């Protein structure tokens, strides 16, 4: 079973090729096979087949054995599986701390942050936040559309020079339930990176 995200990504890229079904079929039928044998069997370029086999090997699905024929080395590939299982735990992608709990951060808006908050028309919360990246003519605007909990959270973010507050305290003030904690942490990290949010040392 493949559960590593990078390997699943690699497998996804190669399985989407037009010729992947034919090559997988060959790998399954043959005890082992070289790139040149498979290429000649299917009328393909050897380099294409070699790249495909190497990618499957990288993904941990093929065995690779170096053999010699009149002192010239080449690789033979063997496939010993009947099925390929992929399993992706999305939760593992979230960059929480090791305990998986909310980080104990005390935050507020940074003074003179180069930012524009846009207020939603229907309610008192923010619909988007724009930050400016770069300097002079190279400056570009990065606009992030906020979810409603994120917009309410940022609306209640302490002003520059006001008392720092913890994330749960601000969420309570903003009436944002705990189920939105991960998206709140995500926007806090993003805005901290862009110098909009200040974290208490």
């Amino acid at each position: 079973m493949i559960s590593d995200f990078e390997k699943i990504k690699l497998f996804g890229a190669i399985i989407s090729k037009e010729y992947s079904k034919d090559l997988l079929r060959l790998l399954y039928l043959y005890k082992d096979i070289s790139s040149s044998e498979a290429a000649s069997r299917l009328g393909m370029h050897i380099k294409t087949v070699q790249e495909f086999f190497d990618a499957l090997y990288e993904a941990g699905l093929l065995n690779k054995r170096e053999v010699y024929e009149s002192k010239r080395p080449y690789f033979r590939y063997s496939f010993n599986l009947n099925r390929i299982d992929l399993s992706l735990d999305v939760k593992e992608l979230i960059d929480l701390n090791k305990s998986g709990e909310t980080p104990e951060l005390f935050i507020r808006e940074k003074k003179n942050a180069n930012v524009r908050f846009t207020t939603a028309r229907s309610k008192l919360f923010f619909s988007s936040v724009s930050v400016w990246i770069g300097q002079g003519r190279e400056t570009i605007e990065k606009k992030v559309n906020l979810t409603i909990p994120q917009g309410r959270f940022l609306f209640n973010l302490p002003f520059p020079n006001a008392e720092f507050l913890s994330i749960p305290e601000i969420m309570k003030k903003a009436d944002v339930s705990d189920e939105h904690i991960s998206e709140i942490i995500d926007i806090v990290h993003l805005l901290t990176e862009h110098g909009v949010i200040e974290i208490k040392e």
Partner: protein
Amino acid sequence: MIYSRKLKPDRDFTGLLPAFFSLLLGALIGVIYGPEEGIRVVGVIVFVYSIFGFIAYYRTRSVGYLLSGLYMISLSLVFLSVEVNEYSRRVFVYTPFSKLFIVLTFSLLIILLYMLFTKKIKWRGRDILELAAVNVNEGPDSYTDRPRPIANLELTRDEVENFAEFLKSNLIAMPYYEQERILFVPVRMGQEYFYLFNNNVKYWDKTWVAFDFDGKVSAHISKKDYLEYRKNLEFDPLCESLGKLFIEFFEDMRKDEASRIIDKLNEVKIGFFS
């Protein structure tokens, strides 16, 4: 209580410009075409101004604007009804009709002067900004363009709407009605024309206090108004103080003690034209 001024002195005289240019135009026409034409032109201009007075009354329901509109109509009728004899020693000959309007005009003028000195026809934006800053200390520039949540109140929509009517008719703040809230924009003297005769005010960029019908109160101070203070004030307490000032007014209104609101504003002792 003695308040130390935290706002810069008001040297804005834009409110006097229309009267100044009207008289200048009348004088020019009088010199070029003769006194009758000059006085008639001023009469027509004042008549047009009276329409603005009635529009302002319609927008605010302030008695001051109604009387001001009537005063300008009466004054314009004096200018339009007086007979002009430029070759006589008495250039202006008052007809019975014009005499009637002179009496009416002076009567209205006396009432308007009384209202002016008692600040009943004064927009209270400066008073509000001064009151909001009373207990706020100087601090580093920490301005942010974000609104600040102030409090959650138990209130009804009717109470907020009554509050809006009161603030509007007493020229304390201009209300802007939205589906779920009313925003109150404190208007300073000299800026009232922009709010009274402009239907597309981007009030979200201005200084305001918003009362949601579900009880949330928020405040926002524009950069322009923040820079009106002589020195940088701590911004977070300033926003909080502005919001709490309006909540205090709202509570006075609920207790049927609306006159206290006017008393508090009068305590600041800001001039009639500021």
